[in-house]
């Protein structure tokens, strides 16, 4: 006791010294969420963009927003998969960030945990946001944040490979014509299609356009339509149109396969646009076709800007200013360009298309996209999704037929 008390005293003394010395320097150390200075103080922002360091435009934007709100910003970037648990732990310790930017399917989970404030409470304006995007952040009639941008999935294709195989991309309209195109590509000695069917949320995300494109609903994983979607993928693997490695592919490895130039198609996201310019062959983008033609609804990706619950409710006013600044038209346009995302509001989308015509198919895809937690699935979605990716893995690896895999998935959800 004695020693630890003395040690604590020493630690306290050192802290005092450190604080006095560091007061004029940039924000240092931890615990800034707890510091409540009368004059502005420090506000913490957590985001899932570890690819952006201190010198990035994103970090600078946050600082600018902080300055205009009269506060200092302390930003911490986490890996997306880490952020949910970190946010839950922080909330448990009543040490949440002031502004939290999280992947959209997580919002309903955090809302269920009581971690997030509603837009009624925090006065963030969401009136301009496209309703299909906002739906991912809504549960029980309440809205828990505003999207910073959206991305979704579509099919990238390699023009050279298709030309050699004698495939006209305009002919690819539905599943049979897509499969026929893949058969031609394989006959021409090239590889068909690559996607990610890994046993994580990524796998479900990639399967959903086909799942929804078949007419299936997430509330009935064992429907005939669902079986037809999984059988489509399984058939591609069996016939060698898709490589067996898709079972372990992340979207990044799947992109790396496409970038070799051997593959005709790759199901991938808006965020690969910047990389697509570097692949060294001509590429194009088409929406994922639905089973009987038309476009399948793809799931929306992208993050929500949220304001976690604080013990000190006086902080919300400033947090709201920060969120408004981050999601102002001008800043959204800018941020979504760096993230390679589609903006969540029509006004900014128009600006994006005006600046870059290539974004047109993506903006259309985002408008047709559907939130994973929409339809009031909320926290049911994570359980459904886990069973869905397990079923996909079982079927593709051959340990169960698509029908059996989806049957047991549906019974596990119940």
């Amino acid at each position, binding site marked *: *006791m*004695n*020693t*630890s008390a003395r040690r604590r005293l020493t630690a306290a003394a050192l802290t005092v010294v450190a604080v006095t010395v560091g007061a004029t320097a940039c924000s240092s150390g931890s615990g800034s969420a707890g510091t409540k200075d009368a004059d502005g103080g420090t506000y913490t922002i957590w985001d899932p963009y570890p690819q952006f360091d201190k010198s990035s435009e994103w970090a600078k934007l946050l600082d600018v927003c902080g300055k205009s709100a009269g506060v200092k910003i302390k930003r911490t970037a986490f890996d997306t*998969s880490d952020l*949910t*648990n970190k946010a*839950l732990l922080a*909330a*448990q310790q009543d040490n949440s960030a002031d502004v939290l930017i999280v992947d959209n*399917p*997580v919002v309903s*989970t*955090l809302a*269920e*945990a*009581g*971690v997030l404030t509603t837009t009624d409470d925090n006065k963030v304006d969401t009136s301009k946001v496209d309703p299909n995007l906002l739906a991912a952040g809504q549960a029980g009639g309440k809205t828990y944040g505003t999207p910073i941008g959206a991305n979704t999935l579509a099919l990238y294709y390699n023009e050279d490979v298709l030309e050699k195989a004698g495939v006209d991309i305009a002919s690819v309209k539905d599943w049979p014509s897509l499969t026929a195109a893949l058969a031609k590509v394989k006959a021409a000695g090239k590889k068909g299609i690559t996607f990610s069917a*890994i*046993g*994580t*949320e990524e796998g479900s995300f990639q399967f959903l356009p086909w799942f929804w494109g078949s007419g299936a609903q997430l509330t009935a994983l064992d429907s005939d339509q669902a079986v037809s979607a999984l059988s489509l993928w399984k058939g591609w693997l069996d016939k060698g149109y898709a*490589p*067996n*490695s898709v*079972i*372990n592919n992340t979207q990044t490895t799947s992109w790396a*396969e496409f970038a070799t130039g051997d593959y005709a198609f790759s199901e991938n996201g808006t965020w690969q646009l910047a990389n697509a310019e570097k692949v060294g062959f001509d590429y194009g983008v088409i929406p994922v076709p639905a089973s009987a033609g038309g476009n399948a609804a793809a799931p929306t990706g992208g993050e929500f800007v949220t304001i976690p619950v604080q013990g000190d409710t006086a902080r919300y006013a400033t947090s709201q200013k920060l969120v408004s600044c981050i999601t102002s038209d001008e800043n959204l346009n800018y941020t979504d360009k760096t993230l390679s995302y589609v903006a969540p509001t029509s006004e900014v989308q128009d600006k994006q298309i005006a600046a870059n015509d290539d974004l047109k198919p993506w903006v259309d895809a985002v408008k047709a996209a559907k939130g994973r937690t929409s339809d009031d699935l909320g*926290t049911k*979605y*994570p*359980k459904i*999704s*886990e069973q869905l990716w*397990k079923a996909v*893995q*079982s079927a*593709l*690896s*051959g*340990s*169960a037929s698509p029908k059996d895999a989806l049957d047991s998935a549906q019974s596990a959800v119940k």
Partner: protein
Amino acid sequence: MNRTTHPPGHRRVPHRKGAAPAAAPAPGRTPARRRPASQQWAAWGFLAPVTLYLVLFYAYPLYRNIDLSLRNYTVRSFVQGNAPFTGLDNFRTVFDDPTFAPALLHTVVFTVVCLVFQYTIGLALAVFFNQNFRLSATLRGLFLVPWLLPLIVSASTWSWMLNSDSGIVNAALGMVGIGPVNWLTSPDWSLTSVIIANTWVGVPFNLVVLYSGLQSIPTSLYEAAALDGANAWQRFWRITFPLLRPVSAITLLLGLVYTLKVFDTIWIMTKGGPADSSTTFATWSYQLGFGSLLPAFGPGAAVGNLLVVTALVFGLLYVRVQRKQALS
């Protein structure tokens, strides 16, 4: 000698009474007693860091894990801290889960097969390097590489090499006319693949420990045996193996505890899949607690506790074996 035995004897007193003030009556009775009291304080002082360390980093996390496994945590109750106590419900959930039986089987198979191969290959290499030929030290150093590499590097490399379509292993097999094997993506092969990778990682540990064990066997024994006409095989089974038994026991027991908890290699290579075909208790526990968007902390902690108990049993066995050896 006297000095070193003193603190442990004193340690017991404050331990039983629990708090320092309880020891306070000791000073001030007689001048003769003063000295031990101040020594007691000193003993406490020396003891404090390690006690604090043990409590902070062992006792408390363990307590939290047991607590997690005995309560019904949802994300909401996790944050607000009012999860209802549900006794052994989480354990029942885990036992009834269809993943339980395969996970148990995989854990046993993974641990046993890895140990057998690690030990056999490690011993063979140790005997080989004990010959002290030229470059043997350099080669032995090279064999340590798998041990020194961060697991994320070696596991990622293995998963590239074993890739179904672009992996070097399938390319090599293709050259000798063996069709492609879906190492990581077939439920029949995934467990084998992670066992191969983990054996590779574990061989150096066995090599090093067994090699040092071999060094302590006097060469005169081999000379005597050679004079008696024992061949190399007999020398190994009659001298090396029996004399190496204590070292072998420790190597195997430590290896067992290390292998039981292997997580990184499996998670990076297969994520326990496809279709749970390479799921062990370690990956299952992680999968439950952190693998999906909606964490199931309770069952995850329950599986973790099962692992802790198993490791503890073998840990105690290890301590017993060590004590026996110290006595003999």
